[in-house]
């Protein structure tokens, strides 16, 4: 009976966090099939190590991110996530919320060209910078939480984020130059 209760609680926990884990994994491993594997492995690992979470050492989400990052690293990063245009997002039937689109338009003045260049620039980040970048700007973890999730010093988080953003700028500037000269 007790196990049944735990399982039900775990199921509810799974439904609460699966999207977060899946999307984070997808951005990190760059492949939907691999992200599915990571999703399973993360929750199996969470179940197995459920007794080891210590609230005093950090937030639950950070712990979950740590497990996700570890599983992604184990999975290897085989390929980059595909860059798709906003139109393609809709074309593949995923109903990108209108608010998302207008938000993108308003905040970024994001033309298709700009978005695609940004996505391509993000794709160009290598394995060292990418997880830190995703945990900060997609998962919205603080530097301290990223350091815990990745098991790296705080200073390394700062320097990797600096490098990541500056790499994006370089790529974007180069793309802009290409566009101007064409």
């Amino acid at each position, binding site marked *: 009976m007790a196990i049944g209760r735990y399982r039900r609680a775990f199921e509810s926990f799974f439904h609460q966090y699966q999207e977060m884990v899946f999307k984070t994994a997808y951005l990190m491993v760059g492949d939907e099939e691999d992200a599915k594997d990571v999703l399973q492995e993360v929750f199996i690992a969470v179940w197995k190590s459920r007794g080891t979470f210590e609230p005093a050492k950090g937030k639950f989400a950070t712990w979950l991110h740590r497990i996700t990052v570890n599983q992604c690293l184990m999975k290897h990063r085989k390929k980059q996530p595909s860059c798709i245009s906003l139109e393609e997002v809709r074309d593949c039937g995923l109903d990108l919320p209108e608010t998302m689109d207008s938000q993108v338009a308003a905040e970024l003045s994001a033309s298709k060209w700009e978005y695609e260049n940004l996505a391509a620039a993000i794709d160009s980040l290598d394995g060292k910078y990418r997880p830190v970048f995703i945990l900060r700007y997609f998962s919205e973890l603080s530097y301290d939480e990223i350091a815990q999730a990745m098991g790296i010093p705080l200073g390394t988080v700062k320097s990797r984020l600096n490098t990541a953003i500056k790499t994006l*700028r370089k790529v974007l500037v180069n793309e802009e130059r290409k566009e101007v000269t064409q």
Partner: protein
Amino acid sequence: MKCEDVNELLIPYLDDELGKEEKKVVELHLSTCLRCREELETLAAIRTGARQALKVMAAKAIPPEQSWKVIEQRLAGKRQPKIALLSGAKSKLEGGINMIKGGLVSRPPAWKPAVIGVLVAALAVGLALVIPPHLGQSQEVLAAEIAQNDPWVRELLPEGAVIRVTKAVRPVEEGIFHVLFLIPGESIWDGEDGNKAIMIDTSVNVREKKVVGVRALKIEAAHITPLTEVEKEKAVEIAEANPEVQEILASGAEIRRVIPLPFFQPVDGSLTINVVGVVLTVASSDSQAKAERWIAVVDLVEGKVVEVVQYP
């Protein structure tokens, strides 16, 4: 503080990750330095844009519906396919399989188009294959046998479904072979979905003689666009330049026809046929014996033969 020192702090400043003192120093510098203010604006724009781009990229990733069932089964200590459990029941089939649609969702790995092409080609020429005989008693045959005899795989195959084709392909990882089963949709779905099919892809570890993974792909039957004469001629030309095809031709075979292999490459809703099959046949002198047949799978865009497969 110099501009270059301040520059190192601009991203943590934007992320609100600076201590009070550092923040003051940065703000003081910014109040007097136009160049650093411009740099701050640029970095802020990139940061905002990157956030939005990540959201859009992640919007594509939707967790599969059957994930919890799979995890539940694993927690219960049962063997699991990676994607879905298929027991033949329609309801179970419909939830947890991937739809290869428009090539935008979950493209199959690079080896798959060729394999699928072979499967479709086999259907197109009206053959029901078990194991291509040219494989001989190789590890590929062993892989196919292991997959076919695995009780778990047998359980996945819907009752009454006809397994039209099995095909072992070369391992993508050492020791791991893929064996594919194609199940016609009409044995699973009624009505419109009857033109779809399920392909069950089993990963077999031939060393350990066991099935190590199973996944199901729902594939849509593609309309076959007739090939133009130019395409046929090009396919023949490419095939004839291939040493393996040349060897088959030298043994007395003739090129009988060129057939389209409909792949999952819709462009603007219509199919682009990039890969075609060149069918070669050697007529037997013994009227009782079956003719020997091969299909050379030709990629018209790449200008090469992808694979040559013999059929009984």
